[in-house]
């Protein structure tokens, strides 16, 4: 576990949950760039979420109602059911990978841009740069 470096040591302790931070939250909320970030992020997140939930519940449903298909041998004794269950792991990893790539390439820079323009937020910038 790394010790906080000098830079972090000097980081400002921000008050939590108080409106006394001097930042105009309403203005940021109304900013078209924030709206755009939020719109894109929401659509992306809930699409991925829906895909993963549907994929997951297909497994117990398939096992319960299509045992014959699940038992079909494809590769020696390896059957459809085993490959389907293994594919669930691959799908979960893929969704995680796709999300994190999109977040690092698209959402983080958009948020950073917003923070820069709001300005005077000091230590928050490096939060996103790391």
């Amino acid at each position: 576990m790394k010790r906080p470096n000098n830079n972090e040591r000097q980081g400002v302790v921000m008050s939590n949950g108080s409106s006394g931070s001097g930042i105009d939250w309403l203005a940021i909320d109304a900013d078209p760039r924030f709206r755009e970030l939020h719109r894109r992020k929401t659509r992306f997140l809930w699409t991925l979420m829906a895909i993963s939930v549907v994929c997951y519940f297909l497994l117990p449903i398939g096992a319960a109602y299509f045992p014959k298909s699940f038992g079909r041998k494809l590769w020696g004794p390896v059957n459809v059911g085993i490959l389907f269950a293994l594919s669930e792991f691959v799908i979960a990893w893929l969704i995680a990978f796709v999300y994190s790539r999109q977040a690092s390439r698209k959402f983080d820079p958009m948020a950073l841009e917003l923070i820069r323009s709001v300005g005077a937020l000091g230590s928050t910038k490096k939060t996103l740069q790391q």
Partner: protein
Amino acid sequence: MRLGKFALPGLRRGAVLASTVAAAIASPAACAMFAGGAVPERFGWLAVVVFAAIIGLTMYVTYRAARRVTSTQQFYAAGRSVSGLQNGWAIAGDYLSAASFLGIAGLISLYGYDGFMYSVGWLVAYITVLLVIAEPCRNIGKYTLGDILAFRNDPKTAKLMAAMSTIIVSIFYLTAQMVGGGVLVKTLIGIDYEISVIVVGVLMLAYVVFGGMVATTWVQIIKAVLLVAASILLVICTWAPYGFSLPAFLQAVVGDPKVQAQVAKLLGDAATGMDAAQLGQRFLEPGLYLKNPVDQISLGMALVFGTAGLPHILMRFFTVPNAHQARVSVLWAMAIIGGFYVLTLIIGNGAALHVGAAAIAGFDKGGNMAGPLLAQFIGGGAESALGNFFLAFVAAVAFATIVAVVAGLVLASASAMSHDIWVGVIKGERATPAEEVRAARISAMLVGAVAIIIGILAKGQNVAHLVGLAFAVAASSNLPCVLLTLYWKRCNTGGIVAGMIVGTVAAIGLVLVSPNMTYPQIERANAQKVIDAAPAKLETLQAAIDDATEAGAKEKAAKAFAKAKADLAAAQAAQEKFADQETSLVGLEKPLVSLKNPGLYSIPLGFLGVIFGSLLWRRDRRASAMWEELYVRQNTGINSEQAVGH
């Protein structure tokens, strides 16, 4: 290193404690205690050495950590200086409890495909954590679930509700871990149940009280690394003879007579007419363990939505410096947890092939000994030193697993008690950091003492469904509240209160009226059936013994006869036990619902609770005034809690 430099007066006590525990474990008397478990008595010293090494390592880490833990941020959140990679391992350490480490390998070894299918939900759960929980919570939270809910709702009410829910979820989970751990340690190395519960409790308290989140994180990391290393070793040794080919390995599994016999036993009458190859192949098909698809979907919902509401998992996201690292930590956690479950496919099937379901179930009906017994086989069997070294190693990892998971749970409940209830509600946020850390340590000791007492009182109880219940409560109360306060503008204090109460009561209430409980009339009726059928059955079996001409067949028939006799005795004992009881714990003659897992009903009820609670509540000025701030902050990370040096 001078002693006078210790930041904590309690550290000397910590060092004394560590050496006492180590001495107690290494003493000759302790060696004698390691008898009657899976490790043969003459190899008991091996178990002692491996246990002492692992406990020594974690104690050293705690000793180092204790010098750093002086502030609240260090105690609750390890100074927010944990990297994404480290936190990923720590999340895996927190999550892979003995139930998943030993339990899933065991389910696969006994029931084949269904055991593997069961493991999938435990990984998919992290998609919810990654997509909708980890980053927003890191951006707006501080130390606890209560901090997240207090952001735009009435702080005192929200913190009180969150703390109560945290404690309820943690106690359910904790009880399952303590009881399961005590039984496991007894089966593995033969230590008395009560002693192992106390040792687990004392060790865990040493980590949490002296080292706070810093030590707990390191204990989780050490345990997760050991766990993964042990699994990889087992998989390599099991799989290598088949050239790492999945079809070749599974062909050996389905061709094994022990596996075929197990399938025949599970199928009962349905197995008539199936040849050996069909029976073997059936092991890789669904339906040997999970019979009720609706129940399974209900459990799947609790896993997929409950993991994101587990307080000890949420708390881990406050230990990293920012939302980006929170995301990185979930990615690592998913890689480690998912990889681990894929490995259990080989471990479970390997145990079915080499050890056999009958031998595994002989030690423990739930199959928990599958992994350890496979390790013993790989090393050369029950009579070899290497085999017993492997077994001792896996046993020690299992022990470390229980201690680490319990430590995470105790830290989460202690934080809820000190940070949310004591500082937030009772002291009205007016406490110095030193006072708060002291309160957190005292809370940890209280929770730890409660855990030990519950562990001892619940000896012999069937607590397996408590883990499922913990997930169900988290999914029905914590998740709807967190999700809607983050993403729904109208959500307010009334919604939080209603959601927490409705979700918790629904999940627990549904379990209380479910088939999980014991129903004396049904037990008596089942026992009566066995008793009624016994005379005819015994007569047939007696005739089979008399008719058998070969020695082998005679022996087999005699075994069946003895088993039928034992069943009869058990049924008679059950009759006696339930003779003067008429109803279950809550006064029911038979279950009101057929589902064992409440998630299917209780999760929607929890969401409805938050929605109607919010709509019916008086206008909540704070909740709507804080909405924009919360919304911008959770999406951008502006003003999030920073890592601060001492």
